[in-house]
Structure formats: structure tokens, C-alpha cells
């Protein structure tokens, strides 16, 4: 028998190359994907890692990414649904980081700010979620959400889990206050997202509709220490901002195009307030709680409503 070592060593280049090519079919290479039972799916792992970090690129790309798959480019069903389903907290963190980058870029240029609340300008990263997911990303008030009526009132607004008002009060950890207008009474639907309370009132005489069918008023209440927490609000170019006072507390009236914001809670955790904007927004802080009121009533009536919260 020929000694293989010597036989191989005697091969000319092209024969040696041929032997090496053939050898390749016998080499034990790791195989990615599902070919090995129980193996980790490499492509899926990569996707998960990518989804957990923002792409390089412009700030707006990062913000669109942060807004979810599909995002502002397509308004695709997958994007809308994932927003409806509520984004995991990690997405909020990334959104926060992206917004902080913007903040760094415009620091000093925007002199607005409540204690613990800073406002920055920018384009909304995503269309308002629509139940069907097929709506274009215009911001017009004529948008319809056909399946919204199937869910609890405001169920498409990503406010959190639908709970009873009593449950919301219990879980909030602070006194949840309501407008004292007897025509409003208790909310028609209550939502809880962590310790964030979202309250919805249906349209009624004196409470016109908003961009979300059937919804006349949305009030969100968050606990926060103004010394440790701050808010970022990102506003589009078609959004106007008015500085106001609500019962002596500083606040802003924000009207026009949709916008979004997030906050960082006292534990340093970024929370993406990704619930959809349904109308003009009154945002103010009082004590250690921040309030957000959305309505179509106009600024003066919104402030009166806000000042009636007890």
C-alpha cells in the first residue's frame, strides 16, 4: 500500500487542488439553521439582536426603526399590529436613546421646558396605528378604524390592558383624579400600562369626537418625581406648541400633527408612551404626577376640563 502522505506530497498543484476540493466535502463544518435538531436558528438570533438595537444612520431612520417594523415607510399591518400589541420596554429604551440624541443635538436651541419635562421638535416616527393596518400614514381626522368598535372603547390606542376603573386606581399607586363635570362621570374604559393609567370617555353632547371613532376624551396619568424624571416630546413641523398654565401648574398645549413622547421613570427605565394621539393634547405636571389630556374641544375648554380634575 502506498504511503498516503508521500503520495499526496508528490501531487502537482492541480491534482493537490483537486484533492483539497474533495476533502472539503468531508470536513465537519458547523451547520447553521435547522439542519441540526435542537440547533439555534442563527438567522432568527440575528434578527432578534438587530431588533434590539437601532440601525446606524440618520436620527429619523433610528426613530422610524424605534417605532416598529413597517414604521413610517409602509404603515404595514405588521407595524400597526405590533404597536397595537404594545411594544416591549426595550423598544422604549431605544426610543429614549434616539430621542436623547436629538435632544443633545438641539440642546440649548429649545428653551422650553417644565421642571422635569423637556420638549423637542421632530417628526413623528410612525403613523397612528390603525386597526386594519392598511391606512396610509396621513394624519387627517377622517381616518377610520373599522375594527375599533369590536374592541373596548379606545382599545386600539395601545394604552395598556383594559381594566376596571377601580382596578386602575388600585394599581396606579397615586390618586387617580377625574373631571368633576357631572356629564362625564366615570370613564367608559380604563387602561393600565404598568402604573400608567389611561382613561377614555365616549363622545357625547358637549364632547365631540376625536380621530379615534367613538372616543371623545383621553386622559393619561403618570406618576413621576419632576426632579428625577423628564419627558421628551417629539413634535412634527405641522405641530404647534403653546405654553399654558393649568391651575397654576406649568403645561403645554400641543395641536396639529400627531406626535409621540416617552418618559424615563424614577428607576431610570425608559417608557415609550406609544399610545396613539387622537387629538390635540394638553400636557401638564402637578406635584409628582404628569397628566395628558386629549380632546377636540380646543385649548380653553381643555384647560377648564383639566383644572376640574379632582
Amino acid at each position: 500500500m502506498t504511503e498516503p502522505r508521500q503520495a499526496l506530497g508528490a501531487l502537482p498543484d492541480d491534482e493537490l487542488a483537486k484533492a483539497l476540493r474533495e476533502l472539503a466535502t468531508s470536513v465537519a463544518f458547523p451547520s447553521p439553521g435547522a439542519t441540526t435538531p435542537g440547533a439555534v436558528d442563527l438567522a432568527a438570533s440575528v434578527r432578534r439582536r438587530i431588533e434590539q438595537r437601532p440601525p446606524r444612520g440618520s436620527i429619523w431612520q433610528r426613530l422610524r426603526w424605534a417605532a416598529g417594523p413597517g414604521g413610517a415607510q409602509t404603515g404595514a399591518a405588521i407595524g400597526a399590529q405590533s404597536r397595537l400589541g404594545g411594544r416591549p420596554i426595550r423598544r422604549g429604551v431605544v426610543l429614549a436613546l434616539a430621542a436623547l440624541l436629538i435632544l443633545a443635538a438641539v440642546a440649548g436651541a429649545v428653551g422650553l421646558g417644565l421642571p422635569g419635562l423637556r420638549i423637542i421638535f421632530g417628526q413623528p416616527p410612525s403613523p397612528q396605528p390603525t386597526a386594519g393596518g392598511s391606512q396610509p400614514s396621513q394624519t387627517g381626522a377622517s381616518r377610520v378604524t373599522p375594527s375599533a368598535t369590536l374592541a373596548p372603547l379606545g382599545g386600539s390606542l395601545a394604552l395598556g390592558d383594559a381594566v376596571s376603573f377601580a382596578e386602575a386606581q388600585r394599581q396606579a399607586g397615586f390618586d387617580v383624579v377625574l373631571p368633576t363635570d357631572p356629564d362625564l362621570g366615570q370613564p367608559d374604559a380604563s387602561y393600565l400600562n404598568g402604573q400608567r393609567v389611561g382613561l377614555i370617555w365616549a363622545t357625547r353632547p358637549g364632547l365631540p369626537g376625536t380621530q379615534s371613532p367613538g372616543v371623545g376624551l383621553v386622559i393619561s396619568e403618570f406618576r413621576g418625581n419632576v426632579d428625577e424624571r423628564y419627558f421628551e416630546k417629539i413634535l412634527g413641523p405641522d405641530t404647534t406648541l403653546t405654553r399654558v398654565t393649568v391651575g397654576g401648574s406649568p403645561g403645554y398645549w400641543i395641536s396639529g400633527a400627531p406626535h409621540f413622547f416617552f418618559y424615563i421613570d424614577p428607576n431610570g427605565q425608559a417608557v415609550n408612551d406609544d399610545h396613539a394621539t387622537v387629538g390635540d393634547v394638553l400636557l401638564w405636571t402637578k406635584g409628582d404626577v404628569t397628566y395628558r389630556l386629549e380632546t377636540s374641544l380646543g385649548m380653553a375648554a381643555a384647560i377648564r376640563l383639566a383644572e376640574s380634575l379632582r
Partner: protein
Amino acid sequence: MGVSGTVKVEGRPLEDAALIERARTGEVMAYEELVRRYQDVAVRTAHIVSPDGDAEDAVQEAFVKAYAALSRFRIDAPFRPWLLRIVTNEARNRRRSAGRRAGLALRIAEDRRPDDAAPSPESAVLAGEARATLLAAVNALRDDDREIIGARYFLELSETEAAEALGIPRGTVKSRLSRALGRLREQLAASDGGPARD
């Protein structure tokens, strides 16, 4: 997909460009498709560059980094060698920290007979222990020799692709390969056991 008026880029299906464009706009699913397309060659590359490293880990990291760098990728360039360059770098980084070296190995369930044809007279030379002998000689080579042999003969990369994947000048591929084959012969000629490392 319509191809009229589109210049076909060598070494890359047209769909790659479309997937890359979509991935650039943040469409993660498009990128996942690219990953599935190239994960096999990527893992093989990482394994050749760093046989004792965690090839899947290197490849995963490389794909994540490639995604982050996608905006810098020239869309009319072939994706595969660009990706393999990143994979190679990741695998090389892991190689430095690797201690014990076992090298490339033969498959345990060795498929002795290719199912498509009887072994040719030429390939008969690789029967039995010849495979183990040849692979042992490859394992005894320096890293850069193993890389160029692996790129050209195990991965079947073109000279251009091999140059980009390994980060070496295109013009040196031939001569490097020739020298590597020479040293492979020296290994085979060396007395049994101890590899003739330089």
C-alpha cells in the same frame, strides 16, 4: 422580478440588491432573508479562519455588524465577499484568544461513497486515511496558509472574492496560494507526527 434594463452583477443574484435596499430602510425581515442565504458559507468561513473558535458566535456577530454597516455597502458590489470580510475579521478576533488547537476535523459519519457517482480514479487517492492525512497537514499550516487554501478550495471562492474576504491584495492571491500549497507539501513530506511549523 423584471430584469430588463438591469445590469446583472457578477456573483450576486439580482435579489440581493433588492433585499439590501429593503434592509437599509429598516426592514429586518429582508435582512433575515439575506442571513439565511449566506449563513452557511459564513459559518464555513469562520470555521476555517478559526477552527477552534465558536463559528456561529462569530457569524452572528458579523451579521449584526454587517447590518449596522449596511449604509456603507456599495449597492452595486457583490454582497458575499463583503460579508465574508466581516466574518473573517470576527473569526480572527476569536482566534487570538483561543488556546488549545484541535483544528479542522472530518465528519464522524464519513460518507465514503458520493451518492451521485462512483469515485473517479483521481479521487480514489483520497480514500481512507488519506483524507485524515491531508486534513492534518492543512491543520499544521500557518493561519494565513490555511485561510487561502480554505477560501479557494473549501469555499470555492473566486480569486477576487478570496482577496476581499481575506483582506489581501487581489494580485497576491495566486502567489500566496502557490506558497501555501508548497508548505502543504512540506507538511506531507515531513516525518510522521510533528508538524513542521516555522
